């Protein structure tokens, strides 16, 4: 596709529910990143994939957060037992190689009520 696509653009869920956020990177990009951005803050690193494997998952805040990229393209960020503190914009980005300029999607705004 032309750019990084994230769906849904907005997600409202109740506390305790499970959510999945999808990212479709630019075709051919091997590196895929997930970030979380709270209002007025910079993007906070969550996890980075190189191909199908998670090269660095040190930013995942706890074991309620999990991400997969089974075929080295589309990635899904999964959040179990959501909490109000999980409310944020979740950004996905891809690049041809790790560390090279990232191409960002427009994010998924998650609101946990």
């Amino acid at each position, binding site marked *: 596709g032309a750019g990084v696509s994230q769906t849904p653009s907005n997600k409202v869920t109740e506390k305790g529910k499970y959510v999945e956020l999808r990212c479709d990177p630019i075709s051919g990009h091997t590196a895929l990143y997930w970030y979380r951005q709270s209002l007025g*803050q910079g993007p906070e*690193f969550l996890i980075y994939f*190189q191909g199908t494997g998670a*090269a660095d998952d040190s930013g995942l805040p706890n074991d309620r957060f999990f991400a997969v990229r089974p075929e080295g393209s589309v990635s899904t960020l999964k959040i179990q037992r959501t909490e109000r503190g999980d409310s944020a914009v979740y950004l996905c980005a891809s690049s041809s190689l*790790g*560390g090279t300029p990232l191409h960002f999607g427009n994010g998924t705004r998650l609101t946990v009520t």
Partner: protein
Amino acid sequence: SQQGEEDPQALSIQEGENATMNCSYKTSINNLQWYRQNSGRGLVHLILIRSNEREKHSGRLRVTLDTSKKSSSLLITASRAADTASYFCATALRSQGGSEKLVFGKGTKLTVNP
């Protein structure tokens, strides 16, 4: 955790003036990048400077890097109202397994008044 700290947090200038934003970081880096974010949108890459470079230009943008002080600056010359956005520096760090990850600062919110 966030590696970079931008300064100032907010900057308001008149159209035509220059805008300077600074970024400080803590650990060794492979490169440093600047991004721009319009409200409610994803980030857009502006410019990358490698750790062995000291200055780089792209159009109205000028970036400097001082690795001894662990700092960088972004200068936007002859600013326009359309430059109004948040600007973030991001440092490329060697990650576990030898790959690289980008870590962002908190950003500078720039307002250019017409």
